[in-house]
């Protein structure tokens, strides 16, 4: 009873938080308390007529009706809430072929032209796509060689970083700047999104308000994909509650060690499934492992006062044998295998790893059960401000090249690509053509109906192998980020982790000038090498904690202040964007 009440409360919290973070037109970073009056599922006021023209925009002050349960907000009635259909189809009268470069590796299809989305897209827009693929694993080489030999496609889809950044690529005459086309009114769908969603308007441009790329935009704020987990079956066995504070963790880890004879905590510092992504315990000390946005100012986590306290706690746990003694040397596979083997009571983990771990764990121990848990607090009344978080405007970007201008296809291409951000276009990309890959059910939810999904078990295939046949993933389009098949545990962890605030997380879309980026990276490669090394040594006791001050001095000597200055300037420019 109590449990389900907390669950309901936590869901409400998530919703409020998301509304306030994303939808607030005032742009304040506060938690959602002031928006109490907003009903989450209240329909917006956008109406679209048959011609796809917008009749009336939504009242943005109300925030957007987000709900994390996909079944509900994917209903037929709600789906017109996220975009409009302002593209006049088809976008061209004469046949047009665009060459698109995209990394591709699939065992179920020969090429992306087999994908249902592109077949349907061609029917609707009149634009045919011809794909060129870099060799698997050689994407960066192929990208650089194409540029060096002037062998450009019309569009690079999610290419590697251009040396010096995308603005340099525009200066060098490779990428095409999109601002003029936007100003000409050739992107009505994006225009609508920008006018109605403040975060999109802020994140889709650089500091001078110029547009360079077609990003993946999540119509549902992308959920955290990494956080803390505990073995629920062990908790039950030991008669413990879910730990909430660092003191609870002390107690839990000790009891687990005693009862199970293992070092129960799988800690990760330097790779991507722990401290670096989900602020494993470091959030409890009001700091992070890299730069954080502490109340509108960029600060470097290891220089914050809490960092030493975090090190001290980790060192204490390590000395007590509560932390996996091999944690520093584990690669991802060894890390996950250790969890699945039942040698771990608590860990940081991305939900992407969950399938393999649960499958293996349960085959070895039928009671095996992992439950998500919130970041603990270290003092009374503490509010945690850090967790894994993504911006609505994601880092997956498609770039147009100057070849479009040479071939006189630029305006058609812009209209075509803008269609990907319309409601219908976004739906098509997210889920594939209706009636082919999915269909709406009576209750307003949808189900996948793509034929090969049905007998996938026979073929030994899964959703994640088959999806390229009928839907897109990680392109520049208006994405429904829940249009995938998830395990039930995944919904559970997303709901829970989302309840914690993420306002200190550095925004994804701050931008550097090429000079800044080079200087910043030069300083940080050395500093990150040093911090990784020293953090591990402090935790494992190879360096005494009394040397922390020396550590700070060394960071200063390595020019951390200059790096902070650069990133802080970028942050200020970002926050000052209209």
């Amino acid at each position, binding site marked *: 009873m109590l449990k389900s009440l907390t669950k309901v409360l936590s869901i409400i919290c998530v919703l409020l938080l998301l509304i306030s973070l994303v939808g607030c037109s005032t742009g304040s970073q506060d938690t959602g308390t002031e928006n109490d009056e907003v009903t989450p599922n209240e329909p917006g006021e956008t109406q679209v007529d048959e011609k796809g023209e917008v009749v009336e925009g939504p009242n943005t002050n109300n925030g957007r009706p987000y709900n994390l349960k996909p079944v509900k907000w994917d209903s037929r009635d709600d789906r017109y809430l996220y975009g409009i259909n302002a593209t006049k189809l088809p976008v061209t009268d004469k046949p047009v072929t665009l060459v698109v470069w995209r990394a591709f590796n699939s065992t179920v299809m020969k090429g992306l032209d087999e994908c249902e989305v592109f077949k349907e897209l061609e029917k609707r827009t009149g634009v045919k796509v011809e794909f060129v693929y870099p060799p698997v*694993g050689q994407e960066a080489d192929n990208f650089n060689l194409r540029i060096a030999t002037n062998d450009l496609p019309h569009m690079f889809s999610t290419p590697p970083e251009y040396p010096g950044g995308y603005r340099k690529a525009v200066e060098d005459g490779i990428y095409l700047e999109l601002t003029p086309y936007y100003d000409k009114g050739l992107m009505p769908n994006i225009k609508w999104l920008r006018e109605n969603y403040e975060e999109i308007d802020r994140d889709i441009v650089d500091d001078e308000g110029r547009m360079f790329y077609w990003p993946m935009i999540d119509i549902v704020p992308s959920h955290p994909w990494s956080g803390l987990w505990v073995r629920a079956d062990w908790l039950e066995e030991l008669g413990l509650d879910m730990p909430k504070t660092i003191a609870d963790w002390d107690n839990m880890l000790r009891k687990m060690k005693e009862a199970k004879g293992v070092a129960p905590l799988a800690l990760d510092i330097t790779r991507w499934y722990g401290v670096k992504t989900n602020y494993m315990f470091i959030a409890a000390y009001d700091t992070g492992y890299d730069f954080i946005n502490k109340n509108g100012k960029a600060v470097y986590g290891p220089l914050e006062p809490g960092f030493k306290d975090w090190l001290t706690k980790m060192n204490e746990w390590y000395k007590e044998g509560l932390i996996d003694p091999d944690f520093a040397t584990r690669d991802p596979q060894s890390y996950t295998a250790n969890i699945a083997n039942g040698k771990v009571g608590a860990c940081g983990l991305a939900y992407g790893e969950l*399938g*393999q771990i649960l499958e293996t764990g349960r085959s070895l121990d039928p009671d095996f059960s992992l439950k998500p848990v919130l970041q603990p607090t270290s003092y009374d009344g503490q509010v945690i401000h850090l967790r894994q978080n993504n911006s609505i405007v994601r880092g997956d970007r498609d770039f147009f090249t100057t070849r479009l201008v040479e071939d006189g296809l630029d305006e058609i291409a812009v209209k075509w690509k803008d269609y990907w951000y319309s409601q219908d276009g976004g739906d098509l990309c997210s889920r594939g053509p209706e009636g082919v890959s999915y269909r709406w059910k009576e209750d307003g939810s949808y189900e996948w109906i793509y034929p090969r999904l049905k007998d996938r078990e026979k073929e*030994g295939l899964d959703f994640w192998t088959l999806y390229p046949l009928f839907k897109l*993933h990680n392109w520049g389009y208006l994405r429904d980020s829940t249009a995938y*098949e998830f*395990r039930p545990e995944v919904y559970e962890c997303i709901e829970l982790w989302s309840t914690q605030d993420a306002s200190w997380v550095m925004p994804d879309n701050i931008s550097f000038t090429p000079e800044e980026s080079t200087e910043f990276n030069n300083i940080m490669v050395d500093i990150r090498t040093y911090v990784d090394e020293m953090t591990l040594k402090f935790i494992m006791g190879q360096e005494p904690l009394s040397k922390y001050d020396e550590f700070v001095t060394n960071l200063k000597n390595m020019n951390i202040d200059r790096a902070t200055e650069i990133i802080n300037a970028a942050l200020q420019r970002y926050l000052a964007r209209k």
Partner: protein
Amino acid sequence: MYMQTRGERIFSYFNYILLFVICIVTLYPLWHVAVASISDPILVFAKRGFYLWPLGKATLKGYSLVLNNPNIVSGFLNTLFYVGVGTTLSMVVTILGAYVLSRKGLYWNKVVMGLIIFYMYFQGGLIPFFLMVKNMGLMDSRWAVILPTVVNTWNLIVMRTSFTTVPDSLIESAKLDGASEWRIVWVIAVPVLQATVAVIALFYAVGRWNEWFNPSLFFTSKNKYPLQVILREILLKNSTQSMTQIGVVGQSEQESYRLLVKYCTIMVATVPILLVYPFLQRYFIHGIMIGSLKG
């Protein structure tokens, strides 16, 4: 006849035992891969480290996942072509070059050796190399794989060094018999050094067999890809990294076969080339030189 002393007999036993131990130790990595490739995938994932026998019930599912790839056969045939043609061409050029460079009294030899050694250390890098292939009109041609790597400098130098051990008297006497330089290379020098020639051929063949970087750069169509490039694609497609990058979970059995696929791929990629060496060993015969001197 030479008689063994007591000490030498003891040494001999000791030697047999030592070599046996070395065999066991060095056999392990391959054995590990072989055993893992037919194990129960769930157990392979869970139990890491040292094991000698297949875990759980043996299965060939991993192999069927790898070998069912439609490109495997064409990849294998392509590789046979690259290994066959490439090695032959390499051997002809290397043997001729190394033989000449090993002769004394040639005025230009020092200059050519200097150029070769300098190139060993200073290379132009990927982009100019790529442009060169393009300008020669070799893009998407099988020769783009073979020609730019016809000579391996290390192999050339080793070959040259062994040619210097061929006694001058042997060559001079052949010359007196009226043999041309071309004939001397193939009828006298190569047979005398047949073990080294076999080893260099092995090195070239293994190099070709393992090659994936250049082929992946120069081909736009998959039908010219060698086996290694195909296997690399299978491997990357099944790597944990690429799966977790999309931040998602699969639920079917394929996911648990990822690891198995890794081991099976390695087996498919290495076993055929492993089989070459035993056949080459028949060229490892002592005392060829006597024969040619007397003959």
